[in-house]
């Protein structure tokens, strides 16, 4: 019983990162109607960014978030300017198709780049406090992962406030709901697209940093993270920031539960089962608007 509870707790903590990964993908998809299949590679890059800052300058990974966030924001601006800005000129159906092609291309490039720069080996950031854990009623909770969960929640709360109260945050939400109506109120929707994409990339970078502390990264984790994020987006539906976070937690716990009940190899299956089940039973997702 304790073992199951332990596994579920660990599942909850990785679930927070699934949620953070998904929120960025969901924002980009909801606003630009563009599916960025390179989202996982952006997470991978964020992880290596923190790894580099740690290995080269000894910067604590949690502190490096303060650098990784703005740097990935800039990367997002550059990627939009160079690649995705052209996609949004097409109508919505063409957009998704073209964005898939561009996303796959970008994913391959980033993967190759990462192998070149950091080799294909697994890396993780080995902080002095990496092994620290707190005991709670027979459960052992790794401090680093707990902090990652808390930070993921904080970032998502921050995004929520941004979208709710910032002028351009409101513009982003309006554009997501009806871009033509948004234009008619004087919103430059191209700029809303740009900002949403940059914020989505920044969230991916932050997620990557947190992955590199509590877990491990290698150049090939991108696809896996894109898949997790996509499952969570489908599960939670578009338009609710906290709903997406809850969806991530749910996936993490569900994976842990199925691994505990059916054995390790089934961890990956449950997500796909959820994916298909939600599409069949409630295509809008649990919290979709």
């Amino acid at each position, binding site marked *: 019983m304790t073992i199951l509870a332990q596994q579920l707790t660990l599942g909850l903590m990785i679930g927070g990162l699934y949620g953070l990964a998904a929120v960025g993908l969901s924002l980009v998809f909801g606003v630009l109607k563009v599916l960025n299949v390179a989202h996982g590679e952006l997470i991978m890059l964020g992880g290596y960014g923190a790894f580099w800052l740690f290995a080269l300058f000894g910067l604590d990974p949690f502190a490096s978030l303060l650098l990784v966030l703005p740097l990935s924001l800039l990367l997002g601006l550059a990627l939009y300017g160079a690649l995705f800005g052209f996609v949004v000129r097409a109508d919505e159906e063409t957009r998704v198709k073209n964005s898939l092609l561009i996303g796959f291309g970008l994913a391959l490039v980033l993967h190759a780049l990462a192998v070149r720069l950091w080799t294909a080996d697994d890396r993780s950031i080995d902080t002095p406090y990496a092994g620290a854990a707190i005991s709670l009623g027979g459960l052992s909770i790794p401090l680093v992962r707990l902090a990652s969960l808390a930070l993921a929640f904080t970032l998502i709360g921050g995004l929520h406030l941004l979208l709710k109260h910032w002028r351009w945050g409101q513009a982003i939400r309006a554009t997501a709901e009806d871009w*033509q*109506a*948004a234009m*008619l*109120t004087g919103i430059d929707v191209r700029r809303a697209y740009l900002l949403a994409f940059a914020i989505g990339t920044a969230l991916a970078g932050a997620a990557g940093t947190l992955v590199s502390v509590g877990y491990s990264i290698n150049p090939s984790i991108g696809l896996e993270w894109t898949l997790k994020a996509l499952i969570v987006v489908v599960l939670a539906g578009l338009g609710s920031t906290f709903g997406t976070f809850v969806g991530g937690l749910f996936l993490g716990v569900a994976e842990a539960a199925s691994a505990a009940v059916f054995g390790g190899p089934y961890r990956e299956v449950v997500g796909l089962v959820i994916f298909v089940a939600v599409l069949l039973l409630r295509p809008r997702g649990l919290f979709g*608007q």
Partner: protein
Amino acid sequence: MLEIRDLDLAYGDARALSGVTLSVKPGEIVALLGPNGAGKTTLLKAIAGLLRPRAGTIVWEGEDLGRLPAHLVVERGLALVPEGRRLFGAMTVEENLALGAFAARARGDRQANLDRVYALFPVLRERRRQLVRQLSGGQQQMVAVGRALMASPRLLMLDEPSLGLAPLMVRAILEVLAQINRSGVAVFLVEQNVHASLTLAHRAYILETGCIVGEGSGADLLQDPHVRRAYLGPLAAREYFRL
């Protein structure tokens, strides 16, 4: 104020507007009448910058709007209440109104405009924290008009503001338009309710299959045999009630 000359617009090969020439002068209420599919919505979208004309000019106070994106047209002082209202249903009444003041020209007047909208539609003040999609159709139309007013427009364009509303609500909305006009805002109105809009309008144009086929003062057009037969007779009734 607004001068449209020889405007041509097409969707692919399908011609939607040909040689449309019309004008709106300061302080006027101008109505645009015509059957479904005549191109009325297309014309409004072209003025608002959502559609690009193939030929002709849309001149607003000496400037050609033809290539201006829609968000910059709003900055020039033209606001469109689009067909079907197109509100942000997942947001509150006040958030919708606040977005109406997104344009730089209106940002400074935001509070004054908000007070003005709440004075025109007191019920919106009561409902300001409610999600727009929970409102009745009439209240949603008020939000749509209010959102456009938040942009401090000098020309307010409306695409079928009375569509789907109860007769009492239609009269209320049209009365508010007269009130807005008295405060110095020109109004360009597309309306199915021909009798009411001709009574309200100083002048009107008739658009059929993409061409302007008639023009005159509201009072004259109400007496015009073609208008009476096509828009106020049994045919009009049939169209109005969607029989």
